[in-house]
């Protein structure tokens, strides 16, 4: 099994007629994902290499029965695109758009939380979701994944998500689903959402979790793991040697309450019984040993 998506998930691409949307949308389709349509206002009735394009998400959903959307539009239009998808009944939205203003992100998140509680947003500014051999929505290169499980991956940073897949695939360990949640301040889907889903998924036997400095989502994940996750978890936190980031003034420091350093996150995870690696390669090696012992 997989989490959030599977081989039957029907996907539309908002922004399919743009260069990035076309490249990645068609690549997802070539991977085997059921890419059933695209949406670009004003271009309804056309097609992109055989994939029909609609004027609105509503039209696309009515014609195709899609339940998932892949949003590849510029930051200026992405917030509206997300809300359009939610209003049209899409239940799983992947938005890869980078540089969405924080105010727009916070607004979209809260509108979804209040008005569309059944809709899950992955991202923005994330690589997407990949269930090897079944479904790939996003910008991850499908050939770096290995089907068959038993490891679930959840990662915050985009390119580190690829590194996580790569470390396991090179060592012959497959994945059930790989979720890149993105590193923006207000992510639609969190570590905890993914950990909870992996805990429920019978085919996932262990979880690889890649975090990074800043915020406190990793600390919250550690607390969740301690109480709710019975499967082995291996983690890596990027940024042990990173320069101190731009400090968000005093107000930011107060909000984070001293949390957010790599060490604080690693300590919290270790205390929750998580295997804490020092780099991505070591994380892969620890996971190989765990999978061997299953």
């Amino acid at each position, binding site marked *: 099994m997989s989490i959030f998506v599977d081989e039957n998930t029907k996907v539309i691409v908002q922004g399919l007629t743009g260069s990035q949307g076309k490249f990645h949308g068609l690549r997802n389709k070539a991977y085997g994902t059921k890419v059933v349509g695209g949406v670009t206002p004003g271009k309804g009735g056309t097609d992109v290499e055989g994939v029909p394009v609609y004027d609105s998400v509503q039209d696309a959903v009515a014609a195709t029965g899609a339940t998932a959307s892949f949003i590849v539009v510029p930051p200026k239009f992405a917030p509206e695109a997300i809300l359009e998808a939610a209003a049209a009944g899409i239940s799983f939205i992947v938005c*890869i758009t980078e540089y969405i203003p924080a*105010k727009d992100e916070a607004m979209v998140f809260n509108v979804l939380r209040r008005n569309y509680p059944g809709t899950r947003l992955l991202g923005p500014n994330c690589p997407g979701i990949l269930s090897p051999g079944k479904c790939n929505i996003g*910008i991850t290169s499908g050939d770096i994944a290995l089907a068959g499980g038993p490891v679930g991956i959840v990662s915050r940073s985009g*390119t580190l998500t690829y590194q996580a897949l790569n470390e396991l695939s090179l060592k012959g360990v497959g994945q059930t689903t790989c979720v890149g949640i993105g590193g923006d*301040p207000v992510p639609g889907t969190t570590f905890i959402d993914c950990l909870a889903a992996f805990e429920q998924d019978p085919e996932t036997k262990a979880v690889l979790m890649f975090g990074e400095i800043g915020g*406190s989502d990793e600390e919250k994940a550690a607390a969740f793991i301690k109480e709710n996750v019975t499967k082995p978890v291996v983690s890596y936190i*990027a940024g042990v040697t*990173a320069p101190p980031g731009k400090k968000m*003034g005093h107000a930011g420091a107060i909000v984070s309450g001293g949390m957010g350093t790599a060490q604080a996150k690693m300590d919290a995870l270790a205390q929750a019984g998580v295997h804490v690696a020092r780099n991505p390669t070591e994380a892969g090696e620890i996971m190989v040993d765990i999978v061997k012992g299953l």
Partner: protein
Amino acid sequence: MDLFEYQGKQYFARYGIPTSPGGVADSVDEAIEQAKAAGFPAVVKAQVQVGGRGKAGGIRLVNNEQEAKEAAEFILGLDIKGHVVKRLWIEHASDIKKEYYASFTLDRNAKLHLAMVSAKGGVDIEEVAATDPEAIKRLHINPIDGISYDQALDLAKSAGIDQEALDGVASVLVKLYECYTLGDADLAEINPLILTPQGKVHALDAKVTLDDAAAFRHPEWDAFRGVSELDGRERLAKEKHLNYIGLEGSVGIIANGAGLAMSTLDVVNQVGGSAANFLDLGGGAGADVMSAALEVINTDDRVEVVLVNIFGGITRCDEVAKGIVDALSSVEMRSPIVIRLDGTNADEGRRILADADLRGVIIEKTMIGAAKRAVEIVDEGASK
């Protein structure tokens, strides 16, 4: 983008937040003129983006032209914790009855905006948070609903703001929220927010961090650019839209994605090296961006080897490889380059590099292998 105090006050003024009248001066003569215009007594304040200006002698009260001249002569060129003062802000001195604190920022945990108000302003607010957390009152604000005057008033009351200042503080809070939201600030902070003996409430300082992602809807931000404190290389990197932070080591780092770039620093460190910089190309970097990154790193004479770590997703490795080939045809690199390419179009990227047969370019298959190779090159150089 962090604003200087004077820029923050200009930004506050756009949203109707009261500040003291004043002006900017870059020379002693200008300082005297601005002080006269503001009216004595006046305050001469160093414009640097670092705390502790007052203790370092960067803020002076002046009562006449002669004192204004002396203060400007002293403060211009003053080194405050590594920040050299190039600009002054001069305003009419305010009589202070009380000092408060007010700010808006995003609470990433709650995914809501957060207002903070305290009657204990004018001091290091982190210190207050640590020693007397109850003195800071907080209110979460859902962006859908915003903050009303009545809510702001209740918040000010709960923070123990004096009766005569309540209306002023509440009205500043409503305006500060607009500055924070409509103005796309990541942080909008006033410390101190003062009450004068005449019963007026206004901002004596301004700390504003703008959200760079929102620049497309703020043409007025252009006026804030070009006066940043960045050093030459950081400014060059910023012009090229690269996320660059200079460090002290000898391995120049170029990676795509902040997470991978941080991880590359970690791995270089763990195999015995040290990074000269953090450089994230961002997503979807093309040949021109890669070429610009090499150009920036090449101006750093601490760099003994460049480590390029690319895992393609939206970034295509063939584009990255073309950028490297382009850059090397126009720029003479001072140091060898170790490259690791994986992900989208990686085979094609590696083939482009191999076909170009570039001198001083080494291709490695894994991240850890590339880091080890880079550190070996530094060590070989040291032993020569």
